[in-house]
């Protein structure tokens, strides 16, 4: 991560690390950027900016360590600092309101359980994708990192700069909201009728 001791790489070594360790992550990086911005052009710009920053800060990267987590952290920070303000994301919800609501003790018991395994199995990709995309971005992010990208809680804590306990609780709440969205969707489509 950025706080690592600086490495003294030659220009050749920098390019070798960039090509050998950073560029192979381009697919995951672009998909993460797209899931955050929900816009192909913004995702492309965000990935470009991230790779340029990664090259500038390459002396902070220790060769052979977790390049994917290191790059994801830069991308997430770039998104928050540069993109979030001008993001095209519609109907932005105030995060604090959402966090406060979903922090309440009622959340666990309020989540309906009439969503069925078979219903989820019958859903197509677009339906699952739309439900995920409808989540506030901070909740969406933890699900992307955990379920789509397979990061551990410890890696997520480093990428997001939050304590591991917050990773656990935010993930738990994110899944509750997602379940709620999937349930509402299933009901609207009549999926849950016996």
């Amino acid at each position: 991560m950025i706080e690592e001791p600086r490495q003294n790489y030659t220009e050749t070594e920098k390019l070798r690390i960039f090509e050998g360790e950073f560029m192979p992550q381009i697919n995951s990086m672009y998909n993460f950027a797209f899931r955050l911005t929900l816009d192909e052009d913004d995702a492309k710009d965000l990935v470009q900016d991230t790779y340029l920053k990664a090259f500038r800060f390459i002396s902070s990267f220790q060769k052979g360590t977790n390049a994917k987590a290191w790059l994801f952290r830069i991308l997430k920070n770039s998104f928050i600092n540069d993109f979030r303000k001008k993001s095209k994301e519609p109907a932005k919800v105030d995060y604090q309101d959402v966090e406060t609501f979903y922090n309440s003790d009622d959340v666990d018991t309020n989540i309906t359980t009439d969503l069925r395994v078979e219903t989820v199995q019958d859903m197509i990709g677009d339906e699952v994708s739309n439900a995920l995309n409808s989540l506030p971005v901070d909740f969406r992010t933890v699900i992307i990192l955990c379920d789509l990208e397979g990061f551990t809680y410890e890696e997520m804590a480093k990428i997001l700069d939050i304590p591991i306990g917050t990773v656990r609780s935010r993930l738990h709440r994110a899944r509750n909201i997602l379940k709620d969205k999937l349930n509402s969707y299933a009901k609207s489509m009549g999926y849950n009728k016996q």
Partner: protein
Amino acid sequence: MSLSITNWLNSLEIKPIGEQPSPCEKKKGDCLKVIQYILDGEATDEQQKHFEKHIIACIPCFEQYHLDKSIKLALQTKICKKEVPPNLVEEIRIRIGNIA
């Protein structure tokens, strides 16, 4: 025979199905969290073993586990990956070449 089953269930510290609404009624939130850790591969051995015993008798937790598992699987397998724009890699290389 029924006596030995009762003893066995008692030794597992679980109640027979139907005897109570749910063995984890009072701490359902804890069970939901453990389900999350198990599905994410983050549960301790102790949590894993305890939960394996627990869902034998707790239908709500059994159903919750399979529902959560199906949602995780749907996220992993049903959402299409976006193709990287064909010129993106080349554009990055050009911009890096300009500052290297």
